[in-house]
């Protein structure tokens, strides 16, 4: 791939040399060669620009002159304002992050032998449609951690650092010795005494959510000077509770349930239930209330709502970067191939660290390429449509709105072609500096 870049047009072809028509062409022949292109360009590109500009000053039906009303609504219409705000976010973040990643990849791939394979992998998404990429990322961002890989990874990382609770939705059943203690915890109604056994039955944990190690619950044996007890799921499948508030053979212990002994609001002892649900507390718990703290019952962590209102734009920008970082990488790698090696080595000989070489030599030398890549991506990002249209679900599409999408909606589903034309003229105005730059650069070459 690197060798291909040399063949490409990275250096603008020298246009120079005043060329006389070799063929002594008659003008009529030249006109025939040009005619198809000029007619099509005129009808399909130039005429629409003029039409859109004129149309943007007329009202939605196209009959009455509306002055700048359509442009005013660019700043008053709720949907367009969200779109403008999101476009700013897009233009600021997407091109810079993609270019930065492209730069890092281009520099790093020079250091490994399989750099070309890596480049191929990162560049590949450029070949596929934004629609396909959109579908790919709808799958990635699926909210359910059992289906969407983004949340699967995120929840995995999250649960490594915070303990997952084992008994969501567990709660006391009828005539239970337990009562809610606020904040999701449960507490015994009366104090416990040493030498007694305690029953802490709950119901409501779905069978498939029970801990894997849970064994049939066992009634605890009393021990002198200790408090013993059992906490278990007081529910027998097919038979309801069985014998209320006492252990039945088919009922499972709450393996791993935390139990705290509380006196005057202070925890004096704590225990964790064994696989059969039994636990033992020391004599110091005598006279305390037993509490099952809320950490036992928290809902399992479900990951981030990637496509919800607050994260949807960053998530779609992520998909865009997945597609376009390869573009930045390939262009920058081509630029890097043109950097004189002697300069880098001279800097190294002078004792510069790798970071200093990168920061003080490589980046400044690549500055023109980085600028071209960033500007190209900015133009591209201004027009982003497909990814937002496909990835943002209906419920958060308003929050993810961008100008190109709003133009499509206004022009083709809300029947407001005046406003849609104003949006399109606004987009055109934004790219005019680049248009001017292109023409100026080319003019110098043509004139040489």
């Amino acid at each position, binding site marked *: 791939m690197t060798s291909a870049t040399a063949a490409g047009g990275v250096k603008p072809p020298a246009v120079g040399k005043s060329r006389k028509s070799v063929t002594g062409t008659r003008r009529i022949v030249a006109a025939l060669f040009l005619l198809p292109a000029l007619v099509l360009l005129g009808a399909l590109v130039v005429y629409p620009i003029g039409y859109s500009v004129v149309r943007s000053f007329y009202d939605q039906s196209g009959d009455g002159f509306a002055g700048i009303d359509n442009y005013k609504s660019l700043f008053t219409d709720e949907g367009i304002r969200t779109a403008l705000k999101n476009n700013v976010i897009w233009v600021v973040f997407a091109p810079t992050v993609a270019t930065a990643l492209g730069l890092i990849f281009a520099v790093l791939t020079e250091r490994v032998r399989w750099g070309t394979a890596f480049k191929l992998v990162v560049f590949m998404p450029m070949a596929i449609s934004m629609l*396909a990429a959109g579908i790919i990322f709808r799958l990635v961002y699926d909210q359910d951690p*059992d289906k969407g890989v983004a949340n699967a990874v995120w929840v995995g990382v999250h649960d490594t650092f915070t303990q997952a609770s084992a008994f969501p939705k567990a709660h006391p059943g009828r005539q239970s010795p337990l009562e809610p203690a606020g904040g999701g915890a449960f507490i015994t109604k009366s104090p416990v005494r040493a030498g007694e056994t305690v029953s802490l039955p709950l119901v409501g944990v779905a069978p498939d959510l029970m801990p894997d190690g849970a064994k049939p619950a066992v009634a605890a044996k009393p021990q002198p000077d200790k408090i013993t007890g059992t906490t278990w799921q007081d529910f027998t499948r097919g038979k309801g509770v069985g014998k209320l508030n006492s252990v039945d053979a088919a009922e499972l212990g709450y393996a791993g349930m935390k139990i705290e002994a509380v006196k005057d609001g202070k925890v004096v002892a704590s225990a964790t239930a064994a696989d059969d649900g039994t636990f033992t507390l020391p004599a110091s718990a005598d006279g305390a209330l037993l509490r099952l703290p809320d950490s036992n019952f928290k809902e399992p962590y479900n990951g981030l709502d990637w496509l919800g209102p607050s994260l949807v734009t960053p998530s779609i920008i992520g998909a865009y970067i997945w597609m376009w970082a390869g573009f930045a990488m390939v262009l920058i790698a081509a630029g890097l191939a043109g950097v004189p090696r002697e300069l880098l080595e001279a800097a190294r000989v002078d004792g510069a660290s790798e970071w200093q070489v990168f920061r003080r030599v490589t980046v400044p030398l690549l500055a023109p390429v980085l600028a071209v890549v960033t500007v190209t991506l900015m133009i591209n990002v201004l027009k982003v449509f*497909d990814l937002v249209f496909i990835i943002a679900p209906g419920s958060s599409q308003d929050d993810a709105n961008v100008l190109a999408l709003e133009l499509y909606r206004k022009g083709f589903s809300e029947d407001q072609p005046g406003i849609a034309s104003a949006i399109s003229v606004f*987009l055109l105005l934004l790219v005019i500096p680049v248009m001017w730059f292109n023409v100026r650069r080319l003019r110098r070459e*043509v004139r040489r």
Partner: protein
Amino acid sequence: MKAKQSLGSRLAEGVSGGLVRVLLIVVGLFWLVPTIGLLLSSLRSPEDIAASGWWKVFTEPSQLTFDSYAKLLENEDITSSLVNTVWITVPATLLVVIIGSLAGYAFAWMEFPGRDWWFLGVVGLLVVPVQVALIPIAELFGSIGIFGSVIGVVLFHVGFGLPFAVFLLRNFFAEIPRELLEAARLDGAGELRLFFRVVMPLGAPAIAALGIFQFLWVWNDLLVALIFSDSGSQPITVALQTQVRQFGNNIDVLAPGAFISMVVPLVVFFAFQRQFVSGVMAGAVK
């Protein structure tokens, strides 16, 4: 090439090479996983998709099945839209290449008044966003009766493909050595003969780059077809887009559909990497 390798190894000495390698492998996986997810999802039954994530197939490879593909290829909507995609993409690519070559050659080697100004005008059109033309062209096509047809979609793509085509080909043709053209002229070749026998063959690399670029551009387009085609002329991208609204219940249609729509671009990409890259690079101004 040799100098570069020695530099590479020297760099590797500087920074811990192992770390760079691990980082690149992680990033590479990061880039591959989404596509693998789509591929594996497309190879599972709707029941399995509803029940668990695609990574389940690593522990239960028996889940893999081509059923979704078989069902999809019996789906009239999808197959006819695939055919439409071909009917849109091939003419749009050929027309841009032919018309662009003619104009590029004229701008490069013919004398006529205001030549450079005309060319700069075309270059100015490079960055015009397609959005500007959607409403006007929709009305124009409506009035001449090609709105909702393959022809309309093709014409729009040709119009917006031409600035880049003319720009790229004119610059490339201008590099052809003058002596070659003069020699052919002395041999008595006429304008058309010169164009087809000398300019086109010599310009083949640029024409290939342009062709591949335009082909992928049109094949992958959603927006233009969404507006200018109807249910009878819609390409695969539009057919799949209409399915996205029920996302979640129809992954067995969307995943294989998206993958089928990707196969041709991916084959083109791997077969013509070189031309694709140079097309992309020349298009950096677009």
